[in-house]
């Protein structure tokens, strides 16, 4: 199964016949069965699927957090597959940004220090104009000196978004970024992600199981049982929900 959309040259991340197998023998679990996908530069893609469909595994493999059993993964011009730890670290540092479900900020650092952390680790300076833009977009200027414990959940997640954006990575991977937020904070974060794609050309790949969240994306890729089974361009919450319903039935039988 292949889902090919858009211009090949502009793919920010690409999976090519990716297989992921955990364990062996009777305990063997095949999480991905030959997934090929491209994620175009400057677009907001959501990966959806019921739990156990392999959507998180796909994202982890794309981001270089997990190795693939077979096939290749590329971020921009870099082949991720086969990189060693320092290569992967450099890739994550320079080309990839992360937003996790749980806020994943360092409690000892202030919001500003957290935002600048990836750049500090890399020994780079932030572009001041871009930094200001990011801070204003996330609306955190008043809260920069606060520690994570003094921020609300939504604010913490916005700090995490700012941290991912400020380094201008090739692609940002977001793993259920609104999973822990109430609907209002969630909407804020999603709006913010979408505007960073529309206004600043950032590439974002988001894993979610929430149709409302998926509706913010430009495109939704559906996974079931380790394979890409469907996709939607310019989705709405309703179309996503419909597709999900169609997917759910056979998967439950399959289980």
């Amino acid at each position, binding site marked *: 199964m292949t889902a090919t959309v858009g211009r090949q040259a502009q793919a920010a991340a690409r999976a090519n016949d990716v297989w992921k197998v955990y364990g062996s023998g009777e305990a063997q679990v095949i999480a991905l069965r030959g997934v090929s996908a491209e994620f175009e530069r400057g677009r907001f893609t959501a990966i959806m699927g019921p739990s156990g469909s392999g959507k998180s595994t796909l994202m982890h493999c794309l981001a270089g*957090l*997990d190795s693939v059993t077979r096939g290749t993964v590329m971020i921009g011009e870099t082949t991720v597959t086969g990189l060693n730890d320092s290569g992967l670290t450099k890739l994550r540092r320079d080309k990839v940004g992360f937003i996790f479900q749980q806020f*994943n900020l360092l409690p000892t650092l202030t919001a500003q220090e957290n935002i600048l952390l990836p750049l500090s*680790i890399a*020994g780079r300076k932030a572009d001041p104009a871009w930094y200001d833009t990011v801070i204003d977009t996330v609306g955190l200027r008043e809260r920069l000196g606060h520690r994570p414990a003094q921020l609300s959940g939504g604010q913490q997640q916005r700090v995490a978004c700012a941290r991912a954006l400020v380094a201008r990575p090739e692609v940002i991977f977001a793993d259920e970024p609104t999973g822990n937020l109430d609907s209002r904070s969630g909407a804020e974060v999603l709006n913010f992600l979408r505007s960073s794609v529309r206004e600043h050309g950032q590439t974002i790949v988001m894993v979610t199981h929430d149709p409302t969240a998926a509706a913010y994306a430009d495109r939704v890729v559906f996974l079931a049982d380790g394979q890409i089974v469907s996709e939607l361009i310019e989705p709405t919450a309703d179309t996503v929900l419909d597709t999900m319903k169609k997917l759910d039935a056979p998967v439950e039988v399959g289980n």
Partner: protein
Amino acid sequence: MFRATLKSLLARKLRLLLSGLAVVLGVMFVSGAFVLTDTLGRSFDAVFADAYADVDVNVAAKPKVEVSETEGEQVAGPVPASLVDRVKAVPGAADVRGVVAADGARLIGGNGKVVTSFGPPQLGENWLGESDLVSLREGRGPQADDEIVVNAALAKAAGVRVGDRVGVLTLSPKKEFTLVGVFGYSGGRDSVGGANEVAFTTPVAQRLMLGKPDVFSNVTARADGTTPEALRDEVSGALGGAYDVKTGDQLADDASAGLKEGLSFFNKILLGFAAVALLVGTFLILNTFSIIVAQRTRELALMRAIGASGRQVIGSVVLEAVAVGLIASVLGLAAGIGVGALLAYLFGKLAGGLTLAGLGVPPAAVIGAFAVGLLITVVAALLPALRAARIPPIAAMQDVATPDRPLTKVTVGGAVVTTVGAVLLFLGLSGNAGDNTLATILGGVLFAFIGVALLTPVISRPVVSLLGAIFSWSVPGKLGRLNSGRNPRRTAITAAALMVGIALVTGVTVILDSAKGSISALAEDRIKAELVISGASSGPRPASFDAAVLEKTAAIPGVQLVDGEYGDMATVGGERTWVAASSNVAALERIFGAKATAGDISRLAPDQMLLSSDTAKSRNLSVGSTVPVQLSRGEARTYTVSGIYESSQLTNPVVLPPQATADFAIPQPIQGFVQLAPGTSVGAVQPQVERLLVDSPEVSVADRAAFIKQQTSQLDTPLRMIQILLALAIVIAVLGIINTLALSVLERTRELGLLRAIGLRRAQTMRMITVEAVVISIFGALLGVVVGTGLGAAVVRALKDEGITDLVLPWGQMVTFLVLAAIIGVVAAVLPAIRAARINVLGAIAHD
């Protein structure tokens, strides 16, 4: 509840083992001490039972001065030779022999050096022929006055063989003898209990070892047709109570008991090790359990939520502690038995082939091991257990339930405990605590340590951030610093464990360096002698030299004044005191700069004595008082106080006239001071004195500076022993740092995963952990140096009246400790850092 506890214990076994290791070490030293004492004690019993196997009854004089093993040799006066015939006359006494046996026969070995012995005596004896016990291995017994035999152990140690001419130092200066035989003991042994033995003909032995003819050390007899006990009573009755009459068994018990007393010293050292290890271990366990409770907050809250009582929660934590304590005690006991066996083996080797009795594990070792191990662990876990019981059930539902608790209570408590410690120290050091001085001082030190440990969290904030600033130039450094300041309590307790060891070393170093500095300053200032004759002692007796050297030295051109110093342990007016005698009384003023406070101290008639002002004051004596003095030998004599001099570090409490030295245990000078005429070159005189000392190989001549250095270097030995002892405390503290870091790494798995996800390299991760460790350990060392200097300075101040006037701070040592602490930090960080760097990023992010 019980099963839940057990499961949680198993899940954390490695961590608990690490903290239990400190208890293991402490228990090891406690049980090792008991095993060593027991094994050696029984070995001594066996040796002496054997040594006195051919003696049924022994008759000896009652000792004139009771001297314990550590203070000098036991000198029981000799018995007249006529006693042999009186014992022979007792019915049932057979094989009656007059025995000469006294410590202090030093053989000059093949290399020209005196054979030394630490511990076992160097006996000079009369040759009594072969027996069931003694047999000649080579040659024959001594027949002429210049013939000797030695035991095989001494022949081996000295590297001499039959036919050699060998020098022997006794009560007399060096004399030459021909070695005509070597003897050994039954069972192929070279010695009994490691003693070196030189056997002369009886008249020579009497003269050289006892100082006069026709006397014996003791008389032995065998029982013929009666029991040893019956014979003892017969002999005792016949002699009329003037002598000590004992059976061979009693003698063996006494001899063994004397050595066992010496063993208690080893016991104390080992128990000291144990105390320090356990004190530091307590900190470690407290910390581990605190962390475990914090980590299990949600789990414990869940238990509360489903109906467990607070008491059950306490029970579960204490139960965990009991299990750890039990395991640590078992391991410690096993290790202790090993250490005891090893030390007993080494001791046996050192003592020249002591045949060891089988290894014994006395009940005291087992009871001590479990009592100490369990008590320490449970006490240390109690505080965290109480805290665990206060966790509200709602914590199970909340995400973060460990808010930063205010430090007020701890700080107030710490201040109170520190104050109590300071007051105790003050009381102890000012001498107002009477008999309990040592206990008061030790209690004060303990309280001060605990108090400072409680204050540490408050101190840690500013100090750690200041220290960390040094490392903040890189991102990992900055993260490491922030992490070390994150949990002030945990950082504090970890650092406090290191503090204890370093504070003790620093304190002791301050005291000993100050003592050294003060003594050198005083000696530099006061001793007006350009050359000094002295030597390192070969065993418990001080080195001595031929008194004739003094006269010959005085005859060297350019020598102005020569003084030989003698010393003896004596009973002066009913109290045991070290007494000295000078060959030249004038030296007291002219060489040692003593000032008379009463009477005349420049001359001394044969029946007069001088006292230091302290002695005079404490004994309530003044010029004209008469005092009975019993020396090691001879009869008691009464002396009249003719002068009193000002006490100083360089003066002795009592000075007797030179005529008294004949009755000293060592009737030869032990130090010589040579004052040169102005303008005489030291370099010209020194080699001439050196030549005079050719027959006194125990001593050498040194200039004043070298002598002072040599004297003060005696303090280096206790210092080194204490440093070794405390190195152990530091090792345990390192375990603590490893433990804390390992737990921190575990706790922050998610954070580490995040940092790695956003691009922190492995090397950077390791650097971050290392900085955290280094900051903690330098903080601990800094505290230790400050607290140790404070304690040391307090003691030095208190000892001002004892002559320690200068406070000398060992700056070099302090810097060394800080550098050492940095290295300790790096070493301690290795494993946790590797673990942190190896964290699987994906797994860490998913980690709950």
